[in-house]
């Protein structure tokens, strides 16, 4: 609208031109604002989540992954002895509590507990006593490198080797062989005294009371980087030893070049279990009566009357033998470990392979594999409980407990260390 110069003012009655676009844009803006407000107001709110309050992390005690009943049974059987991180510990079977017995020694074997006697352990090539204060004292004379031991009455039967003279030692070193040679076993008094020699080589074993001892003997044959005996002898401590198994019988039952790898004597001293074989060859477990009916078999290569032979699976070697119980309740366990490939030279805990545990009931001649596979992967310790109710295996991934009379009942405990013995009482 405007006015013309020189013209009288006139009213323009023409209605203002509607501006739909401008009004529309204004409406759009208003709609956006109102819509935004209404949408925001009516939209459903999500239920606020509960505030997360961080709690201080409490380290739960190790619990059995399965089989609480077996653990309860194991607790009744009393404490175990285990080694790890350079110390000897008493471990409760529930895995919760542990008590250091000796912080300065990490033994590889423990003898069954004797009432009133100090703890007898094998470690660092020596048989040692560990008293209640954890003090360690050596039993065997210097120069004797103990590799095995067993009770022999009130004494300790220690088998071992002696170092070669320096010139021969260097030759052995160059050949990658052991710098020691076989030596007669020693009977060591727990309270001191001069040791006496026994014509036995490693391994050795004894009955529960130590009144029957057994060990390897005869000619030494090469076994990997060392040597081992080729016969089995048994008898009473201090008395004459009788040949239970000759070399010919041993080789006939296992294979040429066989030597004795493990020995166990039943608690009542009536049976000797022997695991034998050659390095890389076939192995077998032989169960021999200490007092065979009718004496030796007619042929020199036949096993004595009443003997039993169970072949070890090809590629496996027997690593441990153990008895528990007596009479009809006598049970024997044999641990066979995989030695195939590069596993042969490995110590137990460094093996990547596994194995199996064969359970045998000698009275009824019933045998079965009671544990196998993954629980034995890198397994390094085996023991029956003192009451014989539970069998335990320590391995890198945890310990496995199984009920002796019902081996399908088992528990896995997430605890570490190597199981040495299961005395059931505190030393």
């Amino acid at each position: 609208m405007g006015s013309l110069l020189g013209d009288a003012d006139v009213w323009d009655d023409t209605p203002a031109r509607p501006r739909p676009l401008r009004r529309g844009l204004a409406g759009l803006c208003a709609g956006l604002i109102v819509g935004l407000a209404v949408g925001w107001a009516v939209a459903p709110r999500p239920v606020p989540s509960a505030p997360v309050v961080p709690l201080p992390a409490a380290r739960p005690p190790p619990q059995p992954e399965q089989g609480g009943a077996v653990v309860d049974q194991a607790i009744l059987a009393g404490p175990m002895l285990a080694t790890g991180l350079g110390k000897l510990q008493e471990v409760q079977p529930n895995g919760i509590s542990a008590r250091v017995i000796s912080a300065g020694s990490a033994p590889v074997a423990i003898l069954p507990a004797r009432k009133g006697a100090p703890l007898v352990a094998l470690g660092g090539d020596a048989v040692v006593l560990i008293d209640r204060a954890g003090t360690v004292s050596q039993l065997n004379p210097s120069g004797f490198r103990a590799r095995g031991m067993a009770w022999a009455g009130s004494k300790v039967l220690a088998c071992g080797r002696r170092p070669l003279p320096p010139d021969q030692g260097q030759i052995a070193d160059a050949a990658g062989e052991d710098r020691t040679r076989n030596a007669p076993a020693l009977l060591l008094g727990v309270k001191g005294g001069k040791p006496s020699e026994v014509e036995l080589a490693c391994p050795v074993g004894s009955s529960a009371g130590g009144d029957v001892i057994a060990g390897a003997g005869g000619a030494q044959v090469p076994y990997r980087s060392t040597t081992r005996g080729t016969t089995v002898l048994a008898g009473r401590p201090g008395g004459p030893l009788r040949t239970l198994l000759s070399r010919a019988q041993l080789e006939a039952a296992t294979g040429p070049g066989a030597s004795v790898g493990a020995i166990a004597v039943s608690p009542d001293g009536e049976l000797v279990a022997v695991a034998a074989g050659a390095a890389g060859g076939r192995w077998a477990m032989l169960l021999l009566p200490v007092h065979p009916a009718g004496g030796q078999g007619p042929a020199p290569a036949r096993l004595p009357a009443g003997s039993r032979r169970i072949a070890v699976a090809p590629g496996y070697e027997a690593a441990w033998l153990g008895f528990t119980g007596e009479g009809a309740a006598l049970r024997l366990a044999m641990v066979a470990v995989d030695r195939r490939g590069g596993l042969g030279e490995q110590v137990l805990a460094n093996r990547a392979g596994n194995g199996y545990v064969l359970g045998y009931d000698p009275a009824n001649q019933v045998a079965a594999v009671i544990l196998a596979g993954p629980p034995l992967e890198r397994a390094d310790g085996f023991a029956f409980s003192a009451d014989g109710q539970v069998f335990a295996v320590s391995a890198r991934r945890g310990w496995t407990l199984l009920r002796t009379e019902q081996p399908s009942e088992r528990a896995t405990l997430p605890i570490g260390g190597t199981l040495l013995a299961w005395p059931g009482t505190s030393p």
Partner: protein
Amino acid sequence: MRPRLRWPASAAPEDGDRAGVAAVGVPVLLLVAGLALGGTAGWRSVTGRAAAAPGAPVGPPLLVRSVEGPIEELRGQGEIAYAGADGVIAALTPDGRARRALGRATKLRGKPAGAAFEPGGTLPMVSADGAVAYGYLDDGSPASVRLADARMLRLSPPGTVAATAIRQSADGAVVAVCTGKRRGETEVDSPVTSIAERDGRQLASFPGCLLDLARDGRAALVPEDPAGASGTHQGPVRGVRLWRRSGSYRPVLSPAAAVEAASLVDPTAKSGNVVVDGAWLAPDARRALVRVAVADPPPPVGGWRSGPALVLVDLASRHWELVPSEAPTSTGPVLWAPNGAFAHALPPDSWDPSGANLLVTYAPPVGTPTLLEVSHRTDSRMVFSPDGAWLLLHGGGQWVFIRVEDPSLRVTYVAPGEFAGWLPGQGTR
């Protein structure tokens, strides 16, 4: 064409009406649009999702109950066929999201004469394509039912009954039955194995009962001694050999090797008292697992009984080795996975109500075996998924899925019915 919104100097009456409509309509339209856009923006600012858009594709509701574990991990694992209480055979995706009815096989209610104690022997098993169910009639004779139309087909001559469980190839196209005339409650006279296509066309037959059928249906593990097996009744199996559809045989585990294997566990094993109590052919038909044991062992003493030996045989070299496996009181199933892994189970003693832990050893194609422990379970029936990644324990009214490479990954839910087969494929959704 004249622009619509131009305002002419002199407007005709109809033009004025049109302009009025536009003057009102355009702002109103834009106002409504603003409201809609603003409302949408406001809604999304709160909920984080579009208001007007149809809801995001939410998965269908679960069709299974009491689910524990990440059930979505089972997506894409085909379907599991099961027989419901109403007799309908259905297929369910393992993730519990979809189900379809396959048909009815209500006539398959019997069980084979010689498999009274064989797990699953009384239940129909569905072929891999979900088209056919195999099972037994009330008289124990084997039969198949086409699920689409319930058409039944007898798989053996009249008067004969199944001596052992029906075996089918992986694709269900080939089926093997061992039948004969019933003698007594569980015995079968002169058993004969017949291998046929699903339409009943016989491909081959041989005396004795097969132990296992190859995945492709072209071979089978059979007893070593055909004469003994084809006698008046099915005698003890002393050794195993491989039968091929061409008619040729090749030895797998001789009776002497079976005795040697059994003696690794039982010192009383000797020639004549060792029997084969199971044999399972690997998917590639190059290996076999054979379980041998002393026949008629002494009765169990305490918790122990004489245990069997499980051996793995390489069919090309006939070299065998012990598979260390526990069996102190009972023996469980053994099965191969399609990828060459295998598993064997140690079921707990059924009388034991508390320590009932099922132990399954899983041996992967490469690497060390794994122990899978399932607590409070006595039923050891199990099956691998079609890709071998999962193990399903389907007994006991509850399905337990375990991822074999990561056994901590488990899914459990109430079984919708009795397991009848794990069908490959993606499933219907």
